[in-house]
């Protein structure tokens, strides 16, 4: 790796700073739509403090010009104070942190499955272009793209839970939930699948997995089209290139040409999608967790929103903005590593 990639990485890392300032500025701009008394809830760590609301307004200068408030607000945010969530009766940061593991567990299953299924379908669709397989996969992708996630969730629940009596909503069945709350089951990570393995408890593992099936299917179906489409068109683009012709002319068998040459190059453009996929997953979490009563940060945010719990929703938006910015950073760095034109150029 030459020095050019170091320059690229340094420049890309520096670019994160203005983006983060922008993200905080936008959320701050939303807070300015409220009056100082409402805004005070963004600064308190305890609802009893709201009794002395004028003190808070004075302390953080909530009646002063916006640019002065920005710095006192940012200072609180950096210290981890996102305000008090009235819908959950706890500080917003605590609420987000305690519920993050549920969302992470969903993402750990849904994201890789979406990526693998998307790549696989995109690949066979391109290799078998204009055959029945291609038409079928493309039709599936348009359907997945157009399905309302909340409706898909409801139909899946009605069929499997209502009809067949399997895959109930929630993260665990009541008995497993009760077990997890006792001291016998040690919570290491908050991911019930991982924790049940560490506790050597197969029953809880199966229960946790069965509760993941429907939400993961929903998230996969609504996000897979994105990967599939790009993989397909990028495969087709690579297949038309002269290096493929030369590889075939040298007598390489078709399998090697596809797997070793074309797929490898086509995957580069799929990497750039990871940012968009992250956004799709985060938005999808809000809906999916709500339908399946899977109590992660998306469920929390949706419920907070219906109760107009301002600090909770803004805190959640700030967190997702942060995740999205970091995801895009990782994608760009990964891309630089994979694509020699950037690495060496």
């Amino acid at each position: 790796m030459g020095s050019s990639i170091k320059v690229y990485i340094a420049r890309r890392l520096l670019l994160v700073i203005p983006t983060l300032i922008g993200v905080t500025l936008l959320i701050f701009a939303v807070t300015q739509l409220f009056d100082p008394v409402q805004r005070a809830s963004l600064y308190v760590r305890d609802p009893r403090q709201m009794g002395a609301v004028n003190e808070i307004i004075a302390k953080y200068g909530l009646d002063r010009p916006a640019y002065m408030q920005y710095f006192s607000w940012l200072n609180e945010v950096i210290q981890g104070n996102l305000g008090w969530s009235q819908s959950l009766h706890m500080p917003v940061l605590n609420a987000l942190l305690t519920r993050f593991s549920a969302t992470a567990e969903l993402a750990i299953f849904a994201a890789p499955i979406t990526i693998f299924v998307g790549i696989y379908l995109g690949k066979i669709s391109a290799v078998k272009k204009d055959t029945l397989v291609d038409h079928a996969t493309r039709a599936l992708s348009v359907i997945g793209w157009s399905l309302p996630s909340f409706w898909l969730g409801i139909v899946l629940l009605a069929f499997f839970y209502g009809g067949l009596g399997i895959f109930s909503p929630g993260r665990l069945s009541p008995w497993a939930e009760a077990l997890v709350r006792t001291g016998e089951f040690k919570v290491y990570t908050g991911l019930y699948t991982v924790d049940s393995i560490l506790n050597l408890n197969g029953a809880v593992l199966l229960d946790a997995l069965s509760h993941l099936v429907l939400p993961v299917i929903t998230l996969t179906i609504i996000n897979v089209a994105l990967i599939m489409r790009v993989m397909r068109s990028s495969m087709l683009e690579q297949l038309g290139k002269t290096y493929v012709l030369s590889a075939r002319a040298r007598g390489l068998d078709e399998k090697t040409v596809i797997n070793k040459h074309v797929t490898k190059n086509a995957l580069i453009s799929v990497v750039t999608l990871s940012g968009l996929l992250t956004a799709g997953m985060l938005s999808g979490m809000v809906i999916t967790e709500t339908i399946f009563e899977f109590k992660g940060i998306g469920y929390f945010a949706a419920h907070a929103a219906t109760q107009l719990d301002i600090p909770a929703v803004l805190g959640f938006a700030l967190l997702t903005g942060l995740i999205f910015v970091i995801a895009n950073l990782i994608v760009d760095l990964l891309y630089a590593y994979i694509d020699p034109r950037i690495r060496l150029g």
Partner: protein
Amino acid sequence: MMSKTKFWSAENPRIKELVFVLKKMRSSPLSIVGLSIVVFFTILAILAPVLAPPQTDRDPYIMPRTGYSPTPKPPSSENIFGTTEGQYDLYYGVIWGARAAYRIGLLVVAVSAIIGIVVGGLAGYYKGVIDEVLMRLTDIILAFPGLILAMAFVVAFGRGLDSITLALILVWWPSYARLIRGEFLRVTAEDFVEAAKAVGCSDLRIMLRHVLPNTIFPMIIMASLDIGSVTLTAAALSFLGLGAPAGYSDWGQIISLSRNWITGVPGNPFAYWHAYIIPGIFLFLFVIGWNLLGDALRDILDPMIRRR
């Protein structure tokens, strides 16, 4: 130049283009399906007052109800699609839902496109500092997942359809601004723009008469693909209880009314199937119709892949 040929003459390049598009469409079965669905919903939306006449002089978007019992009733001769929770008539709801979907979809896309043209046009035409400032503004908004940012805006503006419309516009315009900026950068580098400048055309005239018409196709493609996504996002927000009020003919809201009834009754788990299947099918078909049409238009209009 253009004024020499009559508008309806076959020599008019715009008419030629339209004929070309229609010919191309006829050869692709999926675009026919998409177009038919879109035409169907357009007719539904236009004829809503005829197909499902409002009974009172209240807001016609509020579904009529035949009682106050919570339990949905199956399709009958009185309510051909049955009723949902609260005895709201599903037939009325899905028909007027088409109108509601078009109202929010077209409004959000049109206003976003106009803001996008102004912002993207200024950025792409004048470049430099203006470009830098305006594009950083779009970066900030695009740094959030759309649905989540829209949720934050809705909480700030207060629940309701007007709020979600405004929130969606605020979230959606940056992608149009980006697109138009790119197109303006491309087109302003062409010789004919240089020529227009040389003969002393004003900036406004160059932008409106020479550059903008050349950016129209990518915008049509994007707009047609966005109507589906906007409708889906708006429906999701209404489903979450942030948009349309209870009883409003909004597909997302109607689906949310069915949430308590998905397990049916003992012995008949699908007793209330109509309450979630019927409005869901309407929403899904509307979105897939627009997505298929948008896909078809992209294949036909995209200068990179057309006429091959």
